[in-house]
């Protein structure tokens, strides 16, 4: 895209700016549009689970315009602020929350090389930024000058900080198997049939995937871990005092986070854009067969990953309307006494599996030929092959000119 714009005669920085803007808008649409769809979906799912119909009228059949109507209602709502509130923080909190959720999407790949910014430490970045979302919650809780809000915020803080530990351990396992924290490489390592997903790499990864699911649900504050907004105890938790657009920002952030952790799960464990069946390969498309074929491959991958992430979100909804809410001590017990030890043991198990059976459960099944490695680790036996770095780089997925990868760091032409 940048090249295309430069070809149009635009100056380089303008081209970069436009490209960045387009990417940002696309990502924003994922969140905002996703939120619309998911809110509607949640209403329908909740209704069906509770043996109701849910929205039926708005927008014709199925009430599919219900979310839009809700949005308009929220825009029109009066924006209230409690008297004793800390104005600055009260106003800031929703945006902080939303920004954190949004920023994490920067590093999430939607298909091969369809990523806002391909980061060498992608996994780490996503998890770190996701953890910042709780900031907004805490600020909201504090600034609302309401004890319900404060309680909710405190719970949220304790919960999120605790669950980052097992979450990090779970996330490290695919990183260890892939040998990189680059999400694109991790996804590409699982290319081929379903058998090459990290989920099926060995029994330990299978178990740790479910630990990840638990921790992910907890870290995005979804039921049964939604202690921060426990409406039966705390009215509405941290957003008790919010209304209107600010309130909707919290919800956008929540749905964005849900989508994000689901996407992350898809990339880390479920093959990312590499489906249960390598559709593109079976159809004869691959990166090598031409530009349009590459587009098709990416589009298929995009649809694949979006589908998986959506399934993940639906799964969370299913859980939400199925399981009762835990008490705060049960939440902490689940984290510290179950998730963390299990994750640690599974981590060790996966490590030894990788050490002794590096091929996984299904070595070589439907995996595309050719080894995917990071550039500096090319020599036999894992020795760095510093002698010919250029060759190494060309033969790897992470290859290419480093300037392009970190576009921010590009020097402008003089």
């Amino acid at each position, binding site marked *: 895209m940048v090249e295309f714009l430069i070809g149009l005669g635009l*100056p380089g920085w303008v081209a970069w700016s436009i490209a960045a803007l387009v990417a940002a808008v696309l990502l924003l649409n994922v969140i905002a549009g996703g939120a619309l769809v998911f809110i509607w979906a949640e209403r329908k799912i909740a209704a069906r689970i509770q043996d109701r119909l849910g929205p039926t009228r708005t927008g014709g059949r199925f009430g599919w315009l219900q979310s839009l109507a809700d949005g308009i209602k929220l825009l029109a709502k009066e924006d209230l602020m409690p008297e004793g509130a800390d104005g600055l*923080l009260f106003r800031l909190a929703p945006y902080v929350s939303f920004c954190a959720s949004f920023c994490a999407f920067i590093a999430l790949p939607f298909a091969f090389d369809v990523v806002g910014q391909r980061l*060498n*430490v992608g996994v780490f970045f996503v998890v770190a930024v996701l*953890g910042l979302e709780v900031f907004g919650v805490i600020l909201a809780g504090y600034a609302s000058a309401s004890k319900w809000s404060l309680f909710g915020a405190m719970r949220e803080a304790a919960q999120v900080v605790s669950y980052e530990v097992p979450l990090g351990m779970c996330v490290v396992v695919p990183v260890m198997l892939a040998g990189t924290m680059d999400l694109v490489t991790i996804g590409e390592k699982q290319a081929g049939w379903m058998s090459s997903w990290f989920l099926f790499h060995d029994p330990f990864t299978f178990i740790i995937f479910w630990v990840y699911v638990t921790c992910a649900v907890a870290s995005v504050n979804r039921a049964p871990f939604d202690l921060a907004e426990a409406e039966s105890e705390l009215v509405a938790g941290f957003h008790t005092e919010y209304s209107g657009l600010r309130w909707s920002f919290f919800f956008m952030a929540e749905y964005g986070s849900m989508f994000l952790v689901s996407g992350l799960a898809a990339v880390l464990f479920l093959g990312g854009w590499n489906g249960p069946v390598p559709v593109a390969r079976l159809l004869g498309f691959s990166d090598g067969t031409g530009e349009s074929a590459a587009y098709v491959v990416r589009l298929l991958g995009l649809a694949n990953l979006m589908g998986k992430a959506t399934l993940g979100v639906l799964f969370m909804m299913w859980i939400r309307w199925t399981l009762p809410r835990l008490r705060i001590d049960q939440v902490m017990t689940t984290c510290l006494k179950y998730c963390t030890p299990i994750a640690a043991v599974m981590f060790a198990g996966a490590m030894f599996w990788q050490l002794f059976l590096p091929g996984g459960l299904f070595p070589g099944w439907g995996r595309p030929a050719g080894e995917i490695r990071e550039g500096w680790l090319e020599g036999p036996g894992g020795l760095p092959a510093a002698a010919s770095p250029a060759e190494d780089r060309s033969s790897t997925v992470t290859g290419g000119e480093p300037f392009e990868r970190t576009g*921010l*760091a590009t020097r402008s032409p*003089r």
Partner: protein
Amino acid sequence: MTGMLDMDFIDFMDFSTLTHVVPPLATTLAALPALPIAGINWHSVLFLLFAGLACGFAIGVVAADNVVRMALYLVFSLGATAGLFFLAGAEFLGAMQLMIYVGGTLVLLVFGVMLTAQAPLVSIKPSSSDRTLTAVAGASLLSLLLTAAFSVDAWRGPGVGVVPAPSATPLGMALVGVRVDEPPAGTPVGGRVGYMLPFEIVSVHLLVVLVGAAYLARAKRRRTPRPIDALASAMPVEPVSTAATVAPTGRSAGGARSALVGGGR
């Protein structure tokens, strides 16, 4: 620490370099209006953005009196610093900064909220003389640091913009004791070591700190009432509590008796 070789300590102390900065100042001022739009370096612009955020919020931390706001500004400052790290090519470090530092500060914030929930503690204001003194000390310290920073010629020029190779994996390898990064120019061969031992030491250190902090912060059973409990007990006592104090006494007496009966020969 071969990178420090170019820093001659005597030069570093050389205040006379200040006299050499005036001519460049003039040229810079002259160049400002002619800022070529086409040549904007986004890296530098982002640097300015993040640097401004970091510095601004750092000063905000100093200026704010409300502890929660202080913490918020600190988080922003640290987050901006993480951005600076990303810009300098230290991606792993940036993510680390976000996760640990910002996460750690989150805990600080929580504690700030919890401990200062009482109104008088939310903002403890320093005296104005303190402010003056701090301003003087800060200004002199800053001037000293900046003088030192600008006194080395080799540090002053613009960088070449050679984008560093991704450092996360070499960093990880270095932490387990294998160095795979390309040595910087001028490094004596064979002098580079991995960080296995420091890594282990830090790990154990963290564990010890974790246990120690948990020990320090645990709820202790104490004989004498804490001051904070004393504050609470100063409040009017409801009649129910007298009944509550009688009941345990009766229980304990009964318990002692039964122990005697059970334990007697």
